[in-house]
């Protein structure tokens, strides 16, 4: 696809959790908890409030369409601040410092005085109904020449347990938000920039690691389309695909609009009550509904059901809009008969509402008249957009598993910002800014490992990006050979994980103890996997070492080797030096990993030579 010709413009926002001791606006730890550990719960409603400029944000208005009661889980690691029962503490200085470091890494300018804002979010993910956020630095540059517009320091939202149930452990963890300018023009560009920023963030050593700790939002538009923000892309590998699919979606919507115009399609408000028509239906959805309304979309037949990106149709978009009224979705005649609705019922419906062959009929069902009408009204809104001059609405969308997206809410505007009156501004003076030091980039570090330790570059890059990097640094400082530590961290551990060994159960101290044992000759490096398996199974390091690598002296080793050679004297006589390889395994099995392979090989060679020469 010629993305340049399409006028693809993309920017990204990267949200990365910071690994600080305490949360951003309270003194709780930043630890995630198991849902089952919650020790309290409470329920709340949220309602949209006006912004500082006196308006209600359009995204917030949309969330207000249904009156939702939210349930929150509290823990012994959360406090009244997360419960929205206490004013926030001052901004976490540690978190602010990390942001300043990152800002300096990108050559940005800090704001003279940081003001915390409330960003209205009333989907329940924040107990307060807003996310606290502060602009910290402006105007940075990327190696590809692109711009970083801003760095903001924000508080993380609650984790959704399910539906309207949220867990408070994540709420308030500091989050850095890095926003690039719309400076990318191909799907691959976007992925590369995201990779680079992620690497730079990890270089600070102050960011959380693991799934869910970094999320990318992608802003995409094509020349004839509109800006769409796709939230929550967690896997880096999917970013390019998300961009490709969004381009496809925008193009498809443009094509559908052209077709609708050609057909002189139209949208009229209202719809009509068809509840009685389905009183004997086998469709479980319709049977459950108290009210069913039908809306005829003249000229829309075939287009509502047309795929606009894998697994998504114009009908899916209409359905997403309708869901804001609390309904499960809608049916449309492009997909019927299906879902228990029979061909006869479709024919009856079409004739009842006088729908022509080119018309699509939408069915919206709800638990009340009000709900069904709300759903129809939402479909009307979306259908009108589909045949308007700008058929791609500006939206916030969420990523689905494979890289397609679903509608969340309209793009929020500046109207969702309100000053956080409970937090004092923080001045960033020259002295503070000048004292910020820039950490070594992980890519530079990898280059250094290549030079200093002779580790291969791909390996060195992997090591620099590893969560065990601090352990590696510590080991090298303690005199462990870099290659030994690197091999264990990158190869041994990966193999053990594949075998199903619970690597998380092996503390850093055990790594160091094992390496020191190898360095001192108390254990062979070949014994390390066995020792780790034993520790993961619950043994202490000392017991594991004793059990798996009992100390063997050189004399004992020579005796063992001589015994093995004498038992296989014919074989040795026949093979000569060639016996070394096969006998290595036999000796290693005998000493059970307590002697380094190199030493075994040396002794074995000597003894084989003796036998051969003696001959």
């Amino acid at each position, binding site marked *: 696809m010629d993305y340049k010709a399409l006028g693809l413009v993309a920017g990204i926002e990267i949200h990365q959790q910071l690994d600080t001791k305490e949360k951003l606006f309270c003194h709780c730890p930043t630890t995630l908890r198991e849902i089952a550990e919650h020790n309290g719960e*409470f*329920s709340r*409603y949220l309602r949209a409030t*006006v912004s*500082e400029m006196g308006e209600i944000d359009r995204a917030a208005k949309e969330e207000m369409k249904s009156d939702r009661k939210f349930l929150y889980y509290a823990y012994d690691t959360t406090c009244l601040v997360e419960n929205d*029962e206490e004013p926030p503490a001052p901004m976490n200085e540690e978190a602010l410092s990390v942001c300043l470091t990152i800002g300096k890494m990108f050559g940005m300018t800090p704001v003279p005085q940081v003001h915390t804002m409330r960003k209205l979010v009333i989907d329940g993910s924040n107990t307060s*109904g807003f996310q606290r956020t502060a602009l910290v630095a402006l105007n940075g540059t990327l190696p590809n020449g692109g711009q970083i517009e801003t760095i903001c320091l924000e508080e993380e939202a609650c984790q959704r347990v399910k539906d309207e149930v949220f867990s408070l452990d994540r709420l308030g963890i500091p989050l850095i938000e890095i926003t690039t300018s719309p400076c990318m023009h191909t799907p691959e560009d976007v992925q590369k920039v995201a990779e680079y920023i992620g690497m730079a963030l990890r270089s600070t050593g102050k960011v959380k690691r693991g799934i869910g700790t970094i999320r990318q939002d992608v802003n995409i538009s094509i020349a004839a389309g509109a800006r769409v923000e796709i939230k929550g892309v967690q896997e880096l590998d999917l970013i390019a695909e998300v961009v490709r699919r969004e381009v496809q979606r925008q193009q498809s919507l443009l094509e559908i609009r052209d077709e609708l115009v050609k057909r002189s399609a139209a949208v009229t408000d209202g719809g009509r009550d068809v509840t009685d028509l389905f009183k004997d239906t086998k469709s479980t959805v319709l049977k459950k509904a108290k009210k069913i309304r039908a809306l005829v979309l003249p000229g829309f037949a075939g287009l509502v059901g047309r795929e606009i990106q894998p697994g998504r149709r114009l009908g899916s978009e209409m359905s997403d809009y309708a869901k804001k009224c609390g309904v499960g979705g809608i049916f449309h005649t492009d997909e019927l008969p299906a879902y228990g609705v029979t061909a006869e019922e479709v024919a009856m419906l079409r004739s009842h509402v006088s729908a022509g062959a080119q018309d699509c009929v939408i069915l919206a069902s709800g638990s009340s008249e009000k709900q069904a009408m709300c759903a129809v009204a939402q479909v009307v809104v979306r259908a009108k957009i589909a045949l308007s001059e700008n058929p791609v609405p500006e939206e916030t969308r969420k990523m689905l598993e494979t890289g397609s997206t679903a509608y969340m809410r309209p793009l929020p505007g500046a109207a*969702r910002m309100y000053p956080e009156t409970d937090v004092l501004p923080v001045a960033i003076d020259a002295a503070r800014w000048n004292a910020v030091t820039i950490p070594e980039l992980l890519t530079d570090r990898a280059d250094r490992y290549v030079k200093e330790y002779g580790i291969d570059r791909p390996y060195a890059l992997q090591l620099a990006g590893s969560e065990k990097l601090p352990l590696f640094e510590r080991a090298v400082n303690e005199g462990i050979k870099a290659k030994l530590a690197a091999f264990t961290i990158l190869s041994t551990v990966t193999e053990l994980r594949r075998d199903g060994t619970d690597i998380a159960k092996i503390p850093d101290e055990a790594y160091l103890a094992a390496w020191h044992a190898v360095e001192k000759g108390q254990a062979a490096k070949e014994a390390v996997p066995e020792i780790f398996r034993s520790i993961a199974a619950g043994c202490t390091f000392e017991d594991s070492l004793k059990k798996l690598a009992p100390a063997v002296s050189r004399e004992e080793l020579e005796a063992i080797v001589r015994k093995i050679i004498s038992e296989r004297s014919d074989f040795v006589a026949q093979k000569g030096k060639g016996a070394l390889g096969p006998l290595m395994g036999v000796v290693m099995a005998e000493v059970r990993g307590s002697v380094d392979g190199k030493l075994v090989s040396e002794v074995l060679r000597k003894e084989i030579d003796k036998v051969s020469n003696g001959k």
Partner: protein
Amino acid sequence: MAVVKLGSGYNIGVPPQACSFIEHAGPQAGKPAAAAQNNNLPLLSIVSTGGTIASRIDYRTGSVTSQFDANDILVAIPELAEIAHYRTIPLATILSENMTPAIWQDLARAVHDEIKGGARGVIVTHGTDTMAYSAAALSFMIDSPAPIVFVGSQRSADRPSSDNAMNAVSAAAAATSDLGEVAVVMHDSTNDDRCAIHRGTRVRKMHTSRRDAFRSLGADPVGYVEYPSRTVTLTPGAIRRGERKLALHDNLEPHCGLIQFFPGMSPDILKAYEGYRGLVIAGTGLGHTSTALIPGLRKLSDDGTLVVMTSQCMHGRVCDRVYDTGRDLLAAGVLEGGDLLPEAALVKLMWVLGNEKSPEKAKALMQNDLKGECTRRSAHGL
């Protein structure tokens, strides 16, 4: 620093010398139009005094201040229009720490006039810090056949999670109910599911920030309002609508004080109260001060100051007959305040001294229950 709002909605602080004038900003969103009302519903009056229920950003300090009036509350909380139609009386826009006995008197007169004018109930929006004092003051100053409901919010009205809407809706439900006394209606727990109706003379703010900060002490609440159903349940002990005839007794004696005794407190502090007509002491335990304070208290009492002992325990009854210090306090002229809450005792003392010239009768009034402020039996534990 000058605060600059960026196009993204973010504010940043920059040195004023870095700013230059370009043009005046366009007009801000105007005041909302008067809220639509259904005249077929009962009439409630909303007397607004300010507080968190009506708070917005204050550009002087960057914190919040009280800026809304009653109409803003109606616009912000549309459900109120389903319960009643409203007359709105903006009495003050202050945070409640700035309340004074003089404003209590204005408030009492305004509320009295509203009930006289046919309101089925009156809602008083009030800051939570001193709401209990004001509720007690109105309890003594007005005999009312209709409910007078104080309401506020602990979390500011400019946040989506504010408790203002549920509290206000519940207050309106209580104000149209069968209740016939002065009450405080606020969250019963941290959940948005029920408000408690507290008697104005037994209620106290017991937490700095939680939604359910208000508790009835030494008594159960007189009722509850379920949310969102707005069902009101009153306990058998609640005073019912029409039980009392409308009357206003708005005299107060402002020269009264309230001090909390602490270990090592200097008797010199008492000198500041010379010439006061009344003084409430929040004593320790059963109602004690140190022996060192007793001569000063005797002097105050001899000079005509009515000294009333309450307990800083908040729960339980004063008894100055158990220990020798207590006996000495009684001998010095100190009056036992029963299970009066210290703040309610202060307000009651102002009211009693404002309406009763005879010291003996004033003492008797202080020890008699007038508006549910003191109980005969300690039925309720902690």
